[in-house]
């Protein structure tokens, strides 16, 4: 399997080249185009329980598996907002990924909703945290962002604004804090909640904030 990211950083697309017999599992709706030699199957990974848990987690209920049954082929995948895509080999400790950033992964990767400890992170925005675990080395996950993707190494502590988080190492500990000093300050400042990460690990952020973009543009669309 070979994954190339084209049209970076703004309109990035993952071009996945599969050898005969290889497969990739992707978010529903992520497919742009593909070779006629590929076969697509829709499935509930992990059985009914897995599917329901994923639906609760904000990830789409079903994932599609693209398999090169009749010789090699390619499938093109992307997310829906302008931005970059990163392909990351999952470390042994696993990766946390913000639910709307997940695009695709190696079929042997387990992607599940992480319930504990993240309850208030996104304050009712319908966003959740996924944990991606590999069953062996060399298994990758593909995630997409709104804007560019920047990896910030954390060695100590770092405050990240709500809305800019894409993915981070599970080796980091985290807590939810108010961005400014005092309640009024946080409310007026435009900065809401921030996440304080501590420890050593990598954090991937996106350089744009989907909620801010959504509010500023959609507020001027016809009402629904």
């Amino acid at each position, binding site marked *: 399997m070979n994954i190339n990211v084209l*049209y970076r950083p703004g*309109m990035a697309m993952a071009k996945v080249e599969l050898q005969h017999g290889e497969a990739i599992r992707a978010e529903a709706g992520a497919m742009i185009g593909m*070779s006629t030699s590929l076969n697509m199957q829709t499935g509930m990974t992990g059985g009914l329980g897995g599917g329901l848990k994923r639906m609760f987690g904000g990830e789409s209920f079903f994932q599609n598996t693209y398999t090169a049954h009749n010789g090699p082929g390619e499938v093109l995948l*992307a997310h829906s907002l302008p931005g970059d895509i990163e392909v990351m080999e999952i470390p042994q400790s696993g990766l946390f990924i913000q639910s709307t950033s997940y695009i695709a992964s190696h079929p042997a990767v387990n992607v599940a909703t992480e319930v504990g400890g993240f309850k208030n992170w996104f304050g009712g925005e319908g966003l959740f945290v996924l944990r991606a675990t590999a069953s062996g080395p060399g298994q990758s996950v593909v995630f997409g962002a709104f804007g560019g993707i920047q990896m910030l190494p954390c060695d100590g502590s770092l405050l990240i604004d709500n809305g800019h988080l894409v993915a981070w190492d599970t080796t980091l500990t985290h807590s939810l804090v108010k961005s400014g000093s005092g309640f009024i300050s946080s409310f007026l400042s435009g900065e809401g909640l921030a996440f304080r990460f501590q420890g050593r690990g990598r954090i991937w952020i996106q350089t744009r904030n989907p909620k801010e973009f959504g509010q500023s543009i959609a507020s001027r669309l016809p009402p629904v």
Partner: protein
Amino acid sequence: MQFEIRQKPDFALARIQFDAPGEQLLVEASAMVAHDGGLAMETQMQGGLLGAAKRKLLGGESVFQNTFTATAPGQSLWVAPGADGDMEQVILNGGYDVMLQSGAFIASVPSVSLDTQWAGAKGFFSGNGLFLLRASGHGPLFFGTYGGIHAVDVGPNGYICDTGHIIGFTSGLQYNVRKLGGLKNLFLSGEGLVAEFRGQGRLWISTRNATGLAAFLQPFRPRKSN
């Protein structure tokens, strides 16, 4: 006429420079970014009232387009599409036509004629109110999209593309719209309809789907007050 497409693929815009007075460019309404003050701009309904209405009702293009005419050599003009994304140009030479998704048209010279092509029966772009424009003739044609523009040269193996990502294709290709996989896949897969292209030609697909953008913005829209 000289042109350059800059800032590809994220925020592409085209800078066009006229070489001689009298040269003209037909530009989609609201695609103008800036222009030399000496250019004459006329708003007109191309193809007469009936032609314009046909284009609006069926083609999705706004009725009004602007024609820019150079009054001196070296005058310049900048055009860009409305959404974040890419632009591409083809110079038609009479050897093939370009079928373009109606929302993708940005500009062309008067010697390129635009005609609407009914695509509803085949299920293309179903539900989006978008149709196909057939561009034929000679000269430059500029188009743009939400997303990057990825060209696929389709050969004997054909190519499958999600219908929401089709920008355009050359007239040597035929397409067949279907659902991908079985009945279960239609409802559950999250993939809409796909078009399978066969023949020989070029297919332009966008790396983003405008419906995906609209769906993202939906929850942020203001609510109607009763």
